[in-house]
């Protein structure tokens, strides 16, 4: 045996010794995985599966056409986290005033559960004064002096109901169609369906104000089982819009480019091996992040806006506020972002302190958003954007017509408990009829008597305005097609222009 042969034999032996059971399992698992993957993706000819058609792993955010011509091109969703009181803002109940201070009738309590109310609470009349506004004569309270001037642009829905009376599940319900974690948010669905019009910006941006993130956390803008590229990108209106967006010291743009190229090259090799579409998403995200380093600071800079616009919104550059976020929302939509989600925290008016009293704290919360949300609608309008941008304002549930009596005791301030059965939201623009009030509640605003609307219906309507049939927009997951609206949802035809 020559030394060379000897060496080769040794090498072979060494290879066999080194190949452990782990290697074997890994390789065979990969093989099996590839087989399964092939049967899942490769040979599918089912044209009904819209999911495989919509998702292009190499370019997941490329712009796409809706199923049918949509009236809206973009959505701005203003969520007042904590749930504003419909009884102090929109749902005027003079009858409730008459019952003020009286014991709540047992018919409203039997078989019901509340987050904090125990025993027999007292009824509490509206703490605001109401008037009718606009040609439509919509009722709005004195808490929203600015919004009352634009009621003819909006459809006010007084009959929304949910089945969740805690913040996190109720917020998830509104935004993902399920009270439990794991479903994609509506912004993700929309980005999955339409992609991003601007290739330098994400399709789905989230802005928060009020000092806290919503109780449900980032899941309300998560992508659930959709490819992660569709999750909302949270930007800040104070400091750097996105953390670590600037290149660190000593790294210039060229080095950044070169390093991203290198990373992408490695990722591509890994993709060749494993065929995992998430890797393509990752490559696309690196590219997007690189472009965002320039485009995001540009679009998130409100300093260049003229004084008249700052005056209109009541913005203060450099501060984190709802007003700044509202102005940013307009700028983002102008630049082709599909879905802008604003969360404003602090609407949970239980009355356990002045800040959460419906006659103190709620007024201040209203003051912090009223001017800006009114300005947003009017600013979109004057730019010709309102007809193609759907604006939604609302919370995750409503508040009780009873005064909260936590632990059965009288609270120091006037507050209302969570109320899932009835609450008010409004929509404007994007093909929604202005000056319409949809639905009614009973004379104390406790339950819905006409035109019931569920979160699924709101979602179905949003998708409809964007040009999607909520029953056909699906994603294949765990062996079945999933929908945002699950097995429910119908478009609120009454409010569509």
């Amino acid at each position: 045996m020559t030394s060379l042969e000897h060496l080769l034999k040794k090498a072979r032996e060494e290879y066999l010794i080194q190949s452990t059971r782990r290697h074997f399992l890994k390789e065979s698992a990969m093989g099996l995985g590839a087989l399964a993957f092939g049967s899942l993706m490769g040979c599918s000819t089912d044209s009904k599966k819209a999911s495989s058609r919509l998702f292009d792993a190499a370019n997941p955010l490329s712009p796409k056409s809706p199923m049918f011509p949509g009236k809206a091109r973009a959505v701005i969703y203003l969520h007042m986290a904590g749930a504003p009181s419909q009884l102090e803002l929109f749902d005027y109940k003079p009858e409730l005033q008459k019952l003020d201070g009286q014991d709540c009738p047992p018919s409203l309590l039997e078989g019901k559960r509340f987050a904090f109310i125990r025993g027999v609470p007292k009824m509490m009349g509206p703490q605001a004064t109401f008037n009718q506004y606009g040609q439509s004569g919509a009722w709005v309270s004195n808490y929203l002096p600015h919004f009352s001037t634009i009621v003819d642009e909006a459809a006010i829905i007084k009959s929304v109901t949910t089945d969740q009376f805690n913040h996190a599940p109720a917020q998830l319900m509104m935004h993902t169609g399920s009270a439990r974690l794991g479903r994609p948010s509506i912004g993700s669905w929309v980005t999955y369906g339409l992609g991003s019009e601007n290739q330098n910006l994400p399709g789905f941006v989230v802005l928060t104000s009020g000092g806290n993130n919503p109780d449900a956390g980032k899941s309300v803008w998560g992508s659930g089982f959709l490819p992660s590229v569709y999750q909302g990108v949270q930007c800040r209106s104070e400091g750097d819009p996105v953390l670590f967006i600037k290149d660190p010291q000593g790294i210039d743009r060229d080095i950044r480019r070169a390093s991203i190229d290198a990373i992408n090259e490695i990722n591509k090799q890994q993709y060749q091996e494993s065929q995992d579409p998430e890797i393509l998403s990752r490559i696309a995200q690196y590219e997007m992040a690189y472009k965002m380093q320039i485009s995001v600071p540009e679009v998130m800079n409100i300093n260049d806006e003229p004084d008249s616009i700052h005056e209109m919104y009541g913005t203060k550059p450099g501060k984190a506020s709802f007003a700044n976020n509202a102005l940013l929302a307009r700028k983002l939509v102008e630049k082709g972002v599909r879905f802008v989600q604003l969360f404003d925290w602090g609407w949970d008016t239980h009355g356990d302190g002045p800040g959460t009293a419906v006659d103190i704290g709620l007024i201040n919360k209203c003051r912090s958003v009223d001017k800006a949300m009114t300005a947003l609608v009017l600013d979109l309008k004057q730019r010709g954007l309102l007809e193609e941008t759907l604006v939604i304002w609302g919370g995750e549930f409503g508040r009780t017509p009873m005064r909260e009596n936590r632990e059965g005791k009288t609270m120091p301030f006037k507050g209302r408990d969570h109320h899932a059965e009835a609450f008010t939201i409004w929509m404007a623009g994007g093909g929604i009829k202005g000056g319409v009030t949809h639905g009614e509640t009973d004379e104390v605003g406790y339950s819905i008597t006409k035109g019931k609307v569920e979160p699924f219906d709101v979602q179905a309507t949003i998708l409809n305005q964007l040009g999607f049939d909520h029953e056909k927009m699906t994603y294949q997951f765990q062996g079945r097609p999933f929908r945002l609206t699950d097995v429910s949802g119908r478009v609120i035809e009454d409010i569509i222009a």
Partner: protein
Amino acid sequence: MQQFLSEFIGHFHPVIVHLPIGILLLAAILYWLSLKKRYSAIRPAVRISLLLGMLSAFAATISGYLLSTIDDYDQGMISRHQWFGIVTTIISAIAYYLENKNQKQFQWIILLLVIMITLTGHFGGSLTHGEDYLTSAFGNYSSEQKIKPIANVQEAMVYEDIIQPILANKCYSCHSSRKQKGGLRLDDIEWILKGGKNGKVVKPGDAGESEIIHRTQLPREHEDHMPPKEKTQPSKMQIQLLKWWIAIGAPTNKKVKEFEQPSEVKELLLALQEGKESGIESLYIPNDPVGPASEDAINALRVKGVVLLPVAQNSNYLSANFINADTLSTSTVIALLLPIKNQLIWLKLDEFPVTDNDLKTISQLSSLTKLQIGSHTISDKGIPFLKDLKNLQSLNIVGTTISSTGVIQLKSMDRLRSIYLFKTPASEKECKELIEAFPSGVIDCGGYIVPTLIGDTTEVKTAKGD
């Protein structure tokens, strides 16, 4: 109880009827086959088939009679089917009797039986599926006519020319001479006003309280929704016209011009005149179909960063957005739009630096319904070109330097429904003049002010105090 039994047994009729049809026809076939020597052995089966056929025919007759007492069908058609059914049953009994008696008569009675079964079956089918069901394949269908455009809508009859065709199209298949589901007929004004067995359906003067409107507005999956969810639904426009007709008192024999027409109804009526079934083109999409644009032309634009998309997945109409477009050679990129001029209906140039000269090219994009230009290099010189865009419905020139003297020239473009003029040089006074010069709602000069109230910058500290 009796009602319940009738209904329960009656509902078996559609199942049972197939038995006599099949079995009696089989009996005839077996009989004719057995005349051949080769198949003579099957002759005994004829008698058994006839017996079973006769019994099932009897069951079908009973259940059919019970069904006729509870459901709402046209009486004329019902009695025709009923008597043919009874006669067929009797004939099958005679045939059974004659089978081993008189061969000569038997062969004729079998022939008669086949004819009777065929006719009875056909009449029954007409009852459930409609009289034109069988012939609808020849294109001569009457129940789903296309609504014809009306030459002069103001001179047309409200009920006869506008409302009746809608009802004929969407309601007659169940509520007319043919069938009166729920005891309701809608093919004559008298019947319409009379209502069905659940009460009146039209309350003249009050569309909101009219059941016929209410039913169409129910959620589609609701049991009482009309038309039933599997039938074609009336368009929004049709419902609105129906509402209008009821609101003006459900008149007949009156012309459209005799009544007051709210602006949205006026628009619908006009759409009717132009033969647009689905109503107004609120989405800025032409009704006429168009062929696909050339792939090369589309790719040439995409390479330049233009976002070019069909307005919907199955549409050939295109929208173009220049938000990421390559600004190095503006005129060349704009010229690339020409090959897709038949398909391009929405053009969003954003702040893409086009000049008045480029508008000359853009003026050839004759299909455009929506145009947005935000470049400040556009001035009044471009206005004559814009006027060539005959189909334009929405014009957004926010941020351009077009003056009010330029805008006023656009008055001749009668399809324009909105012009956005924010951030243009027009003064407040000029804007007022423009707003008056154009139809209401067309001009939007922007510059809205949200005043700063004391409350906007202060906080409330105590209840009922600022």
